[in-house]
């Protein structure tokens, strides 16, 4: 398995350590953080226009968060030992601390918020469905069937509080992933205080884009009219977040080019050769400048809903490609050059191997499968799907 090496690399550096699965992992957690921030826009900042996407955004975040550990497990040399990270976490290790941030976010924020928001529906469904579905709902009620107005009011207040805690938790979730890379002083492509911030903003961009696309897709599948006020607002937030994200990435780039430290020549060569397509073409032009321009057009020009919808779909897809390319460029790009700054290696991605392309594709599709199950289990729009819910039974 001879890997083509150009120049000189330390002998142990020739083979890449982190594969496409480690590219996928920040992409998935980024979608989680972004989807949640979008949901919190309605809940905390009272942006009423995006209300139709609220529940869908939460379920999307949960679906992606459940799949996110899978690429990590598949990548580990000893996945059966991964529990060690929870039992003996090394407090100086960002990776170990992230395990707890993930757990906190999953349980104390996301699951709790979804449960509180859906509790009324769960109680009703536990009384109206039959068979194994009834059992699932009954378990989810945790034995309490109290959906009196006051109980629901308490749920709403508690949910609000959790969202308020959840926003910095979402920032921490993905900012931490950025810190895992940004704190490695050995690697100049990664080591930067901007890394957590760039990761966070690109996460928000990808999360908002995916919820926007899913909302439009699900609405058209349900043959429901798309609420243009909603998507217009979501697209506006996408546009502004994207501009901030792009500015941060350009700041990093310009700073690097200007200071031109010892690593610059090597990194510059790498970007112009091995990373040219994924960095310049995919990430910058197709994945950032093009969607920003398109979205900008919708902000300044008066366009028909039909045209706007098409632009949103196109921009959303391009955005997701661009953010994936950004993760690729950080993870893979950071391993293509030698720490001696004298050479470059190549990434040979397998196909049907444990860390290959096929695995990555399956793991990207899997969250949508999870989402489909969640949408069936906890319908975001119950009134339209299954008819009006029967009146709530009074508290015992």
């Amino acid at each position, binding site marked *: 398995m001879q890997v083509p090496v150009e120049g000189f690399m330390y002998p*142990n550096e020739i083979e890449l350590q982190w594969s496409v699965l480690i590219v996928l992992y920040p992409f998935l957690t980024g979608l989680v953080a972004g989807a949640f921030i979008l949901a919190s826009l309605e809940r905390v900042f009272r942006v009423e226009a995006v209300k139709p996407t609220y529940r869908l955004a939460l379920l999307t975040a949960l679906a992606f968060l459940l799949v996110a550990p899978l690429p990590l497990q598949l990548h580990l040399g000893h996945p059966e030992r991964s529990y*060690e990270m929870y039992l*003996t976490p090394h407090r100086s290790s960002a990776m170990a601390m992230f395990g707890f941030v993930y757990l906190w976010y999953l349980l104390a924020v996301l699951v709790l918020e979804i449960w509180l928001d859906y509790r009324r529906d769960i109680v009703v469904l536990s009384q109206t469905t039959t068979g194994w579905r009834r059992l699932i709902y009954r378990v989810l009620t945790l034995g309490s069937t109290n959906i009196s107005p006051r109980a629901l009011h308490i749920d709403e207040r508690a949910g609000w509080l959790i969202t308020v805690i959840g926003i910095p938790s979402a920032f921490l979730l993905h900012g931490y992933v950025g810190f895992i890379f940004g704190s490695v002083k050995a690697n100049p492509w990664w080591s930067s205080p901007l890394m957590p911030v760039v990761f966070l903003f690109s996460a928000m961009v990808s999360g908002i884009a995916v919820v926007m696309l899913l909302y439009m897709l699900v609405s058209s599948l349900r043959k429901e009219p798309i609420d243009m006020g909603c998507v217009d607002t979501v697209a506006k937030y996408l546009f502004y977040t994207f501009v901030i994200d792009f500015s941060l990435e350009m700041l990093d780039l310009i700073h690097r080019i200007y200071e031109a430290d*010892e690593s610059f020549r090597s990194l510059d060569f790498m970007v112009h050769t091995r990373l040219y397509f994924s960095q310049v073409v995919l990430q910058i032009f197709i994945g950032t400048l093009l969607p920003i321009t398109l979205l900008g057009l919708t902000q300044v020009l008066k366009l028909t809903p039909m045209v706007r919808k098409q632009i949103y779909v196109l921009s959303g897809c391009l955005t997701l490609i661009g953010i994936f390319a950004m993760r690729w460029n950080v993870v893979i790009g950071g391993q293509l050059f030698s720490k*001696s700054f*004298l050479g470059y290696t190549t990434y040979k991605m397998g196909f049907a191997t444990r860390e290959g392309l096929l695995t990555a594709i399956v793991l990207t599709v899997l969250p949508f499968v999870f989402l489909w199950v969640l949408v069936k289990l906890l319908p975001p729009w119950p009134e339209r799907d299954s008819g009006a819910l029967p009146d709530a039974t009074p508290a015992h």
Partner: protein
Amino acid sequence: MNITRRRMLVLLPAAAVAWKYVLAGTPEASPNYQMTEHWWAMLIDITKCIGCGSCVRACQLENHVPDGYFRTWVERYHIEDWEMEYPKVDSPDGGKNGFPVAKETGGKNFFVPKMRNQCADSPCTQVCPVGATFVTPDGVVLVDQKYCLGCRYCVQACPYGCRFINPKTETANKCTLCYHRITKGLTTACCEVCPTGARQLANLKDPKDPIHEFLQTHSVQVLKPYLATRSKCFYYGLDGAVR
């Protein structure tokens, strides 16, 4: 080389006793080894290295290092005149079988043995999520093969490229400073076989160790000092162009 029978009868028991000591078990059980009396370091003299690769071969044999991976390796540098930022470096198979005749004539040429740097402020131990890699009380960075998850974060964090993942055990591997030898009074495999004495093991806590005198009378360098890893692998004669 004629060993008479009589001599054998005298020498064998002596050898057997020495060998038994060598084979003694853990440092706690080993008769004279106290972790607190040692703070291990390494001294590498670039002016003596001839690039024979004996150290690379010995390390592989002693530590069962898989082919294609290196706990230690030798690099050859060629620097044209004053162009320190553009050296030509090569390390064919880590220098295991020596080096082919160089094509470049003129300029400055030398060999640099590389190995794990014994960092006192080790970045790899800082990032290990579970505590599978650690600095022992006697200053050696080791990997617990039974605890390592194979997450590869430590490999990414090492600025010197001296860690790798062993494909057979799927765990992190690196130079252990032949811990199983130095705790029994032997020296490391690479120091044992180095024909010119370019590599020297040192115990910084032993006031009689020659390294103290050497450090006081010679200019020494460590690799990538700006990363503040407090490396205990001291080089004498290290050119500024060495990466």
